[in-house]
């Protein structure tokens, strides 16, 4: 029973950690779906959103604004910052490159990454800023069934909840709304979308805005976990295997990929670690991604690459 209890604990912890990876991966999926661009700047956007939020919070709380109001205003302010950056990116980075090759656009987002990282730290500061939006203590579940119960981090549960809401919302937005449909159309064929009167610049602004808001949500959770700091941008690297496994174009894929990686790396760490040496957590995701690339290059849920003859 102790063994099973430990297994469950590792599994649940892993799954919930995986959801947090999914949160970052979602931002990538959104932009890739709608513009065919692999957005290298997603990690930097999480940093920007986090810094905007935490610094405005600190600023307001220090001046005696009640905490709940500060949180609301801080979220609004950070959302506004993401909207402005979405507009700037559309206007100056991807906008002039409509109809260009995916690789060209990808390169331009690398450039945007450095600018966002630099600007964010220049404006908001480059220290480690603690953020406390969610409880970080632990729950002990099923204490009657297992000795000592199962330890679950409350923050991870919050993260899971938020990701669930976000994914449902995004799925409805993409499948049911006019703008969502236009987003998918633009992703398929820029030129044809333009020809039926879909204004590409507006669509791309919307996409980058939504990705920016997803980055903000990811920043609230990850900021609480790690503190808002520069290393948060490396989350982008962790999201990459999630995307490869789930498929670059699938919102549910980002979630499932995150869960697989989260659970997989924690289980591997605990159960394989003693035999082949620790530190599995750091490379497990990439090896898994490599295996998926060999077997199913479009990912588990990726859109089939349609090739008519």
């Amino acid at each position, binding site marked *: 029973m102790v063994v099973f209890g430990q297994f469950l604990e590792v599994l649940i912890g892993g799954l919930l950690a995986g959801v947090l990876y999914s949160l970052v991966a979602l931002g990538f999926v959104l932009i890739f779906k709608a513009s065919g661009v692999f957005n290298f700047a997603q990690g930097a956007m999480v940093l920007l959103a986090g810094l905007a939020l935490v610094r405005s919070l600190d600023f307001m709380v220090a001046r005696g604004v009640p905490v709940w109001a500060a949180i609301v205003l801080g979220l609004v302010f950070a959302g506004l910052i993401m909207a402005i950056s979405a507009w700037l990116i559309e206007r100056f980075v991807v906008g002039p490159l409509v109809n260009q090759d995916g690789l060209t656009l990808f390169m331009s987002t690398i450039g945007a990454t450095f600018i966002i990282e630099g600007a964010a730290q220049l404006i908001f500061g480059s220290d480690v800023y603690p953020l406390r939006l969610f409880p970080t203590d632990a729950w002990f579940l099923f204490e009657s069934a297992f000795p000592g119960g199962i330890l679950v981090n409350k923050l991870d549960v919050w993260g899971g909840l938020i990701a669930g809401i976000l994914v449902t919302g995004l799925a409805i937005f993409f499948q049911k709304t006019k703008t969502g449909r236009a987003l998918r159309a633009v992703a398929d064929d820029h030129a044809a979308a333009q*020809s*039926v*009167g*879909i204004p590409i610049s507006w669509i791309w602004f919307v996409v980058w805005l939504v990705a920016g808001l997803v980055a903000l949500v990811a920043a609230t959770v990850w900021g609480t976990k790690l503190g808002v700091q520069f290393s948060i941008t490396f989350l982008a690297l962790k999201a990459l295997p999630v995307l490869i496994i789930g498929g670059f174009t699938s919102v549910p894929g980002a979630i499932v990929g995150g869960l697989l990686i989260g659970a997989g790396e924690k289980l591997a760490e605990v159960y394989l670690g003693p035999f082949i040496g620790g530190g599995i957590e750091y490379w497990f995701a990439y090896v898994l991604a490599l295996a998926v690339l060999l077997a199913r290059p479009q990912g588990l849920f990726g*859109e089939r690459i349609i090739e*008519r003859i």
Partner: protein
Amino acid sequence: MSQAQSAAAPRTAKAVLAVKNIEVIYDHVILVLKGVSLEVLEGGIVALLGANGAGKSTTLKAISNLIKSERGDVTKGSIEFRGERVDRLTPNDLVRRGCIQVMEGRHCFGHLTVEENLLTGSFTRTDGRTAVANDLEMVYGYFPRLKERRTSLAGYISGGEQQMTAIGRALMSAPSMMLLDEPSMGLAPQLVEEIFEIVKRLNTEQGLSVLLAEQNTNMALKYATYGYILENGRVVMDGEAKSLRENEDVREFYLGIGGGDRRSFRDVKSYKRRKRWLA
């Protein structure tokens, strides 16, 4: 020459689209159109004929303003749609005003279903859901095959169905003028005829004006009311479809018939010299 033609056949209907002496340059250096003028009258089907690279697609894209994202630029002349200069508008503005292009090569959204493809065409509409739903039924009325395939991904349907989807998608914007680029491309002759029949019906029943760029001269002149022939970025000949069909040179060079008593290659060359004078 254009003036001469209109003088010969005075037209009473108003011009929906008037392209006046436009010059198009790609990438700042490649001169593609060297002064093209044409007119589409209300309710007309006008064919834009010519060989590969003559400038048919470029003309259409210049009108629909899609040319800018291909690094092309209209450097001279003007384009008027219903009396308003439109050559500095975005494609979105033009679709709102009722002029839409159906691109060459169909360009359906492969990962969207047929119905979703059609609905994307209504993006610019502001007249409410019921009007859009009515138009969807109207499109299904013209293309019953699309109704059968409404839930299929557009990437998997046949070429003819894709062409129908592309035309239907354009119709969903409730246009008064359609720029139709090479609808016969890659389709079986029977399908080409079917699609042209539907375009003709749209023209008579919905009052849709059509500017049609086509290599299939025979088919185009059968359905068009008026035609322009482009060569090397210039209009070399224009006239009523009927008179073009009967024109000796058109018959020989574009329809591949006639020219019976002209056997010598030297005569062909003399034709070419004559043509240079016309241009």
